[in-house]
């Protein structure tokens, strides 16, 4: 084994006649080292990782001065030669294990595949090795797991199975492309720990992520990618502690964890709002003690496939004060989304009720409620899915403004432009369909639609969880701005404690349908009372202090 697991010199990837997606990227990874390539979506980080596997795509033109895996050049390998090396010399872990695993094959056979292709192990030895691997990645009860289908595993278990398959042949290099992005924080922490162990065992790891905080836990070195170039490379502590480049500084600033409420995370057009400045100090929130939204002993259950009932939300109570933000945090399956749907009266609670400004909301009929609907807006995680696919931005917003009958009037266009301006979009977005917009732009349109009806309360269900950290920073800042301007009261639901901590005044921690802890955000984070809150807090990825 040579000293270097992977050598890349002046890697360029071009698709067709377009501008290169990757311009002259160079780096090395030593055995046992973990290098993280961090960048926003579209920065070329995934394409870089894929070219190292010969998977950049049929119309990609990959060139490099040197591209060596374990000291052997892999430039210009044929498909056949690549197949012989993939899995053996380099393993790959992808973001979504659900689509990476065959839903109809037990995971034991998926893991055994690379053993069958790349080793001379007999059937019995393969079974032993698969059991060993399943144990090594920390899945309980290996004998039982091998027979499970990917659909029977949770997200974290699937990711573990995928890692087991990737390390099966003990490839000297493991490439992990956003391996924890879809996972809960506690599971994410476990998977990162597992990758760290693999690196300790001598495997070189190339970690691809959009989140500096996530990689800072295990990466030895960090390379920041922007527009197809590596703009800054160095030791993790050095890059994060004293970033030299503008892009790196922006990415560090975008991390919401441990930044007090009101701190700006993104660079905006307003010069006074540089990242790090706190607007809250100059313009304090008009927080009042008036309760605008109250949940009283909410419960809701669903029927399981076997006919028994499962409580999704169990005796949940809280109050939202005017102008403040209530953060609801919990992992997947904790009942957050059901709570959001109860608050929006899309579901009726079995017990308890929701009141808006002291008036019955969940207990009222939809006819009565419709008059109040304008005061309760919503922002969804999947912004794209929340727009009628046949409509463009202008139609979506005209409808939300209730101006369908005056859509050609000049005042309508003026109001649309003002609304878009408020969420930081240009009027040129009007004729476009949401499908043609980026994730951040879509969420801005979603916020504009929610603001159109001049609501008092906004229910935000995971509004930033499908966005990159840097785009997330912009959307969080935007929400902060509109809250201040319109004195909005927000319910902010997220699985990401770092985000919730940044935006909330009050906080409620949910687990298995119940609120296990609630109180002022500062108090909950400084001195968590419930062990689960403490566990969640410990798992949040942070930049090294």
């Amino acid at each position: 084994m040579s000293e270097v697991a992977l050598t890349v010199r002046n890697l360029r990837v071009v698709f067709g006649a377009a501008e290169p997606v990757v311009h002259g990227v160079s780096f090395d990874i030593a055995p046992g080292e973990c290098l993280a390539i961090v960048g926003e979506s579209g920065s070329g980080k995934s394409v870089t990782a894929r070219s190292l596997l010969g998977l950049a795509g049929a119309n990609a033109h990959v060139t490099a001065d040197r591209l060596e895996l374990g000291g052997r050049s892999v430039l210009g390998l044929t498909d056949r030669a690549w197949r012989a090396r993939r899995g053996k010399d380099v393993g790959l872990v992808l973001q979504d294990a659900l689509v990476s695993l065959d839903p109809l094959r037990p995971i034991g056979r998926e893991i055994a595949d690379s053993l069958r292709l790349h080793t001379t192990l007999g059937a019995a030895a393969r079974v032993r090795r698969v059991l060993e691997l399943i144990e090594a990645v920390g899945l309980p009860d290996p004998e039982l797991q091998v027979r499970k289908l990917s659909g029977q595993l949770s997200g974290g278990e699937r990711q573990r199975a995928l890692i087991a398959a990737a390390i099966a042949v003990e490839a000297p290099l493991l490439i992990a492309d956003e391996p924890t992005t879809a996972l809960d924080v506690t599971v994410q922490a476990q998977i990162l720990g597992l990758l760290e162990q693999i690196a300790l065992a001598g495997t070189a790891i190339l970690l691809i992520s959009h989140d500096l905080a996530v990689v800072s836990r295990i990466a030895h070195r960090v390379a920041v990618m922007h527009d197809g170039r590596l703009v800054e490379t160095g030791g993790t502590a050095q890059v994060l502690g004293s970033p030299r480049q503008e892009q790196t500084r922006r990415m560090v600033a975008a991390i919401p964890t441990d930044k007090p409420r009101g701190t700006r995370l993104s660079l905006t057009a307003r010069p006074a709002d540089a990242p790090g400045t706190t607007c809250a100090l100059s313009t304090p929130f008009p927080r009042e003690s008036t309760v605008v939204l109250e949940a009283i002993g909410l419960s809701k259950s669903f029927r399981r496939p076997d006919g028994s009932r499962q409580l999704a939300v169990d005796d949940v109570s809280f109050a939202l004060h005017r102008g403040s933000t209530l953060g609801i945090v919990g992992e997947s399956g904790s009942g957050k989304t059901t709570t959001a749907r109860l608050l929006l009266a899309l579901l009726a609670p079995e017990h308890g009720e929701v009141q808006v400004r002291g008036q019955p909301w969940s207990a009222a009929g939809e006819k009565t409620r419709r008059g109040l609907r304008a005061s309760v807006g919503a922002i969804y995680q999947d912004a794209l899915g929340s727009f009628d696919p046949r409509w463009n931005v202008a139609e979506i917003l005209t409808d939300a403004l209730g101006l369908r009958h005056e859509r050609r009037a000049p005042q309508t266009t003026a109001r649309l432009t003002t609304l878009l301006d408020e969420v930081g979009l240009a009027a040129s977005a009007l004729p476009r369909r949401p499908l043609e917009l980026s994730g951040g732009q879509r969420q801005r349109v979603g916020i504009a639609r929610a603001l159109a009806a001049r609501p008092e309360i906004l229910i935000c269900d995971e509004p930033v969880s499908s966005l990159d950290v840097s785009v997330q920073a912009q959307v969080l800042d935007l929400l902060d701005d509109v809250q201040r301007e319109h004195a909005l009261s927000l319910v902010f639901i997220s699985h990401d404690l770092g985000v919730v901590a940044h935006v909330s005044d009050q906080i409620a921690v949910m687990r298995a349908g119940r609120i296990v802890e609630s109180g002022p955000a500062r108090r909950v984070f400084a001195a968590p009372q419930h062990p689960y809150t403490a566990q969640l807090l410990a798992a949040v990825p942070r930049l090294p202090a």
Partner: protein
Amino acid sequence: MSDLEVQAELAAHSSQSRQAGPARRLGVAEGAAGVFALFLLVAAVAPTLLAPGDPLHIDPLSAFQSPNFAHGFGTDESGRDIYTRVVHGTQYSLVIGATATVIGLGLGIVLGTLAGMLGRVVDFTVNRFLEVLFAFPGLLLALLFIVIFGPGVATATIAVGLSTAPGYARIIRAQLRTVRSAAFVEAATVLGRTRWQVLLRHILPNTLAPLFVLATLGIGQAIVWAATLSYLGLGAEPPTAEWGAMLSAGRTYITSAWWMSFFPGLFIVLTAVTATVLGRSIDRRMRHA
């Protein structure tokens, strides 16, 4: 998960329709289908433009002529010009095909909407009813209807329409259920829209738009079925210049005068193929638009 799908779709969207654009370019098949569809349309609206003669004009002296300069497609047992008859027959076929599809689609929309929008009891009842209809092959259902109401062009059309309805109803029901639980329908409710507004603005348009593609494909099938019924003597009566009826009349002379059945048959096949090619083309375009 859903976000990933969206990303994949976006990737497919940008790589296919933006750059290479196989979906945008007109294929040879689409071009040919378009030209033939134009020909059919002219033949249906103004048949005298393409074939000035009378399709029922009898000329016993020139009976059984094979295709020649005077009679491009030959003549039948009474000396009627096959080409003129085929052109004039287009009207029947297209009208029968389109009417039958409209009947089938209309019934399908009613049944599918009932099943998809109303409660579980209605859904169950409509579904069992559809399953009973599905148990019969479509053509058998049409035959049954004709047996009860007697042969003729009108009954044949209604019969074909009826037998295609269960298929449409099924698709509409499934599509409705998907759209009804879509996030944008919920978003409209949150904005305070009434049930009728949500139904008319979001649910119906998004359910029905994909159906027009299916309807285009269905017209081809309906034409074949209508011709089949005529061939069996249950639709248009023999002297009428209808393709199925002409095919039936030519059957007797198939060994000596192949052109009598060949040309009507060719037009039935080409029309069905044209409808299919155009339907698929529209479908592809709509998916990438």
